[in-house]
Structure formats: C-alpha cells, structure tokens
C-alpha cells in the first residue's frame, strides 16, 4: 500500500491538470459572442414602461436627483452600474452582460453600431428629438452613426490646456505652450493614447487620428522633445491643478468646468482651446441589442432631454449637452472659461478620433508605447 501513495497523488494531479485544460478550452469559447443578434433584436423599441432601468455609465455622470425624479414619475427602479473605461464597458457587453442604456463615446458608438450591437432608435418616439437634431444639425447625421440611427448625443467636449494663471500669466493659445519653460517639470499630459498622439498631430498639422507610420514617427520625435519637460501622464487633470502638482496640463473641457465648482478662486486658473485645433468628442445614449427593458430605456432618454433635467445634469457634471435651450445654462457655468463652449463650428471642424484599420491601430499603439516609455 504505502509505496503506491505518492504515484496515486501524482496521477490525481495529472488528471486534475487535464480537467483544468478542458475547463480552459471551454472557458475560452467565452471570448466569442454566444449569440449573434437577428433583425428583431435590432428593431427600434417603443417608449413604454417594460421594467426597471439597468443603467451603465461612468460614475457620477448624471445628477442623482434626476434618477429620483425618473423613478417617481414612472414607478420603476434605476439599477446603476459603472464602468471605468470604454474598453471595460465593451468587454462587459461582449461577455454577455445585459444593460438597458449605455453611454459610448463617438468612436465606440461607431464600433458597436457597425458590429450590430445596438438597437435602432426611432426619433419619433422621443418628444424633444427636434431640440437635439434640429438645433444641432451636425448630430442629425454624424460620421459615427449615419442618421443617428442608433444613438442620441449626450455630451460634447473638447481637449485643451488648463493652467495656473497666477503662476504662468497668460499663454499664447497654442499647443506649443506645453513647451513653456516656466512650467518645465510641472506639465502633465492626459494618460490617453488618442489625446496625446492627437495633440502631437495637431501641432505638426497632421490628421488627428493618423495611422501612417511616417506621421507617427514624426509625432513620436516631437513628443520625445516634450518628454523631459513632463511630470507625468495623468487623466486626473483637475486634481493635479488644484493640489499644485501641475502648473499646466492637457485637459478635457468638462473637467475644467467641474474644477470651477471646487476652486476657491477660479481666476487663478485658465483654460484655452489651442488655435491649431482641439480634438472634439461626444458621448451618446445607446441601447444594446440584448437590453432587457429597451422601452424603459427610451423613456429614460426622453426624460433626460427635458430642459429642467438637462440643466441639472450640466450643472452637476460640467459637460455641455447638445440640446436647444441649454446653451445659456452652460455659458453661465463656465463664464470664467469661455473656451469650454462647444459650438456647431467646433463640431464641423470634425477633429474627432476615428477608428482605424487593425494595422493603423497597432501602429498607433506602438507609437504610444514609445511616447510613454521613452
């Protein structure tokens, strides 16, 4: 008996190992979507109460009192969950999680719509569709979703430079300001591939989402010169400015507007939209193909577009929304930073980050590694 004991455990281990391999093979299939949507899954839903709302967005991106109002008016509950990146959101969707309303950025909205992952949205079901698509013709037929067939725009924002006016004075209004000697060692760039490469591209007069390796080499060389002046890559732009670690930082307009709420004296800060051009982005509402309650999701979008709710949300998150009548609210909010405003002309300049081919995306990824790791 006794001499057999060690071999038997070894066999058991081997068997367990084989089981594990099998398990891995089965789990591996999870990477593929279990079911592909058919025409019925993608048909536009009617706006009606068909259950609680399963909401999936960045944390703190809607005023909580708006949720309360929605729950009270329609007698449903809002089940909230949050993502911390677009990639994280899409990974959850692909893994088969079901949500009623999601908030992808333009680039991701295009990918999801093209991939057949979004339900169509019937504009006639939304009471105030005209306030959005009529007042902002750009969004009536945006590049990321022809005819806005699957999305309704939620926010629009741009990328510029935030700085400490009390320490640096006025800037020249160009991306070159990041090379300012007075700020050397206290400059942050966003920890975001597209934003950093896009800034370099604009400074050199190239396409903002270029995937050309010659262009990317030029951008990498340009940014290698900026690197010794940087303190770091961080997307926490407003905290860096507030706590004094940054004198200057690449920043999203909405974050700078939100900073105004936190700052004791807003006049010590500045925000500029550089003249070479500023990347523009927008987040939108979308309903995934497997949403359990698409009707409630339609009602929610409708509710969010009511003027009083738009006002509350703008004041809560600091991002402008392309809804007629909300412009004054936002202008008042960002009075110290007029360049935070996103106009129709800004949208028409069309400096959105676009999806590239796989090779282009890989080239951008390699360039980003070189910019970041030096």
């Amino acid at each position, binding site marked *: *008996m*006794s001499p057999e*004991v060690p071999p*038997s*455990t070894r066999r*058991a*281990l081997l068997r*367990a*190992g084989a*089981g*594990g*391999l099998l*398990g*891995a093979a089965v*789990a*591996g299939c999870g*990477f*593929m979507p279990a079911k592909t949507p058919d025409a019925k899954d993608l048909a536009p839903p009617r706006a009606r109460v068909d259950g609680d709302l399963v909401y999936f967005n960045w944390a703190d991106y809607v005023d909580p009192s708006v949720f309360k109002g929605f729950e009270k008016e329609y007698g449903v509950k809002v089940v909230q969950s949050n993502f911390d*990146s677009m*990639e*994280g959101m*899409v990974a959850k969707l*692909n893994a088969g999680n079901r949500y009623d309303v999601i908030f992808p950025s333009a680039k991701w909205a295009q*990918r*999801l719509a*093209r*991939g057949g*992952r979004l339900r169509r949205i019937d504009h006639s079901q939304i009471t105030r569709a005209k306030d959005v698509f009529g007042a902002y013709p750009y969004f009536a037929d945006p590049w990321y979703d022809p005819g806005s067939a699957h999305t309704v725009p939620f926010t629009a924002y741009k990328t510029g430079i935030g700085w400490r006016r009390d320490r640096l004075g006025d800037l020249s209004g160009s991306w070159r300001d990041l090379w300012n000697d007075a700020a050397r*060692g206290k400059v942050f760039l966003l920890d*975001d*591939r597209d934003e950093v490469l896009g800034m370099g591209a604009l400074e050199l007069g190239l396409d903002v989402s270029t995937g050309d390796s010659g262009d990317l080499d030029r951008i990498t060389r340009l940014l290698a010169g900026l*690197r010794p002046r*940087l*303190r*770091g*890559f961080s997307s926490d732009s407003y905290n860096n400015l507030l*706590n*004094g*670690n940054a004198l200057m930082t690449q920043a999203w307009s909405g974050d700078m507007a939100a900073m105004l709420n936190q700052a004791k004296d807003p006049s010590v800060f500045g925000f500029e939209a550089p003249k070479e051009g500023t990347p523009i982005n927008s987040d939108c509402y979308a309903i995934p193909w497997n949403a359990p309650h698409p009707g409630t999701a339609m009602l929610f979008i409708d509710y969010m577009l009511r003027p009083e709710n738009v006002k509350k949300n703008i004041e809560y998150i600091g991002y402008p929304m392309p809804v007629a009548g909300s412009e004054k609210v936002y202008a008042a909010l960002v009075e110290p930073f007029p360049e935070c405003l996103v106009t129709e002309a800004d949208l028409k300049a069309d400096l959105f980050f676009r999806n590239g081919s*796989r090779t282009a*995306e*890989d080239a951008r*990824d*390699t360039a*980003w*590694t*070189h910019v*970041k*790791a*030096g």
Partner: protein
Amino acid sequence: MALLRHPSRSRSRSRRRGPDASGARIWSWFMLPGTLWMTGFLIASLVLVAVLTVGTTDELGNPRFGFDLSSIRALADPAYTEVLARSLGYALLTCVICLVIAYPVAYTIALYGGRWKHALIAAIVVPFFANYLVRMYGWSVVLSDDGPLLRALRGVGLADANTKILNTGVGVIAGLVYGFVVFMIIPLYAALERLDVSLIEAGRDLYGGPVRTFLFVTLPATRQGAAAGLVLVFLPAMGDFVSAQLMGGPDQIMIGNLIQDKFFQGQNWPLGSALTMLLMLVLLVGMLGYLRRTRKDEAEARR
C-alpha cells in the same frame, strides 16, 4: 504564507514516509479542494494567457484565438526590455529596503515585544486590510508638492521650493516599499519567533560580541524567513503598476503599466499576454533560484 511553511511541511512529510504511510492517503484527499481551486482559477487562466500570446484581435477589439507570432516578435522592441530592466531594478531595490526596514522591526517585536507582541503585529497588519489602491492614493497625497511631508521638510530647511518626491523614482520605490513591507515583516517575525534564544545566549557565553553573535547565530537561523520575505516582496513589486501610476513620472513606467495599457487602451490582448509571459519568465528564473537555495538548506539541515 505557503512559501513560509514549505520547509517544515516537507520535513514532516519525510518523517511520515515511514511505517504509518497509509494515513497519507487521507491527507492527499485534503489537498483536493485546493488543487481544484488552483487549477480552475490559476492554471486555467494562465493557460488562456499563454494561448492568447499567439492570438489575434478583431475589429471590436475582442481577442480571438489563432496562430499569429507578431505579438512575440513585437517583444524585441527595445522599449520593453528597457522597462523590464527598470522594473527588475525597482523590485530588487524594494526588496533590499524592505529587508533593512523589516529586520529591526521583526527582531524587536519577536525578542523584546513581551506581552505586547501580538498587539504590535496586529498594529502592523491591520492597516494592510485597507485596499491597496486607497492606501497608495493616500500616500500620493502625503508626498505631493503641497503635502504634509514636503511642507515639514521645507519648514526645517531640508527641502526648497523645487524639491519633489512625487513623480520621481524615489516616489515609486517609496510606494512599493510601503505597499509590500508587511510581506517581509511577517516571515521574518515568524523565523525570529521560532529562534531559540538560548542560542544567542550561548554565543555570548562563548565570548562572541553582539555583532559576531548576530552575524553567526541570529542571521543564519533566520535566513529562510528572509528568503521567503524576499520572494513575497519581489513577486508583487515586479508586477506592480499602481505605484508607478500614482507616484511615477514619464521615466518611471514599469512593465505592469505597459501590460495594463495593452489590455485596456491598446485593446491588444495578444501583446499584453506576450508581455505577461515575458514577465513570468523573469519571475520564474528568480523563483528557481529561491527553490534551489531552500533545497540546499534543507539538505544541509538533514545531514
């Protein structure tokens, strides 16, 4: 902790391999839940990562199985080797600093802690129940330019307006040491706790000075605890990305940051997997060194 108990467990097994080995069968059944757990969640996910190394990515950014060696070829980029070497340097430095900090602490508590021993160990361990990320975030506030530490240093004239800790190598290593020092203190404490104090007394009786006694009696007796501590600190420090993210600048990026970037922003899981495998290879070499060392120690102890 498994590492820590490793030597004693193998010793007891060798003792039991005698006449009463039938009892060992039961013990091997007790290993079943652990084995299943590890194969299910550790080995299987490792296999997935290994397979994805040669996978591809589709238009939606999803990883796909396939056979494509481009991710492995991409590893030849000098940027990765440089960052890997930097991570190795940071991790080794972190180990050394942790050892220097932890030894006196563990020594004092184990030998002079008296009835406060357990309370003192709890005082060290309890703060580590707080989430690592939260602690690091707090640390980054403490070290920030207008934070309490630099303000105090400026007050006593040790720093000027331009001194900074955040976003430097010092900041990253400080974060790593703070994050993982407890993994060094606990095994050292366990080793020192087990140490027979009469050995030290014997050393003294044989006219060894305090330094000689320490070097030739205490230190060799706690070598295994130190080795376990070194491994426990080295492994997580090498793969860490939080410290470099919150306390590093552009020149302090570690391999963990690059791997995280590939899985998230880059949407390039195959390259992320390839980098993970490269990192594991480096760690494996370190572990082999450790295992050889402990086996040699065991062989010596048995003789």
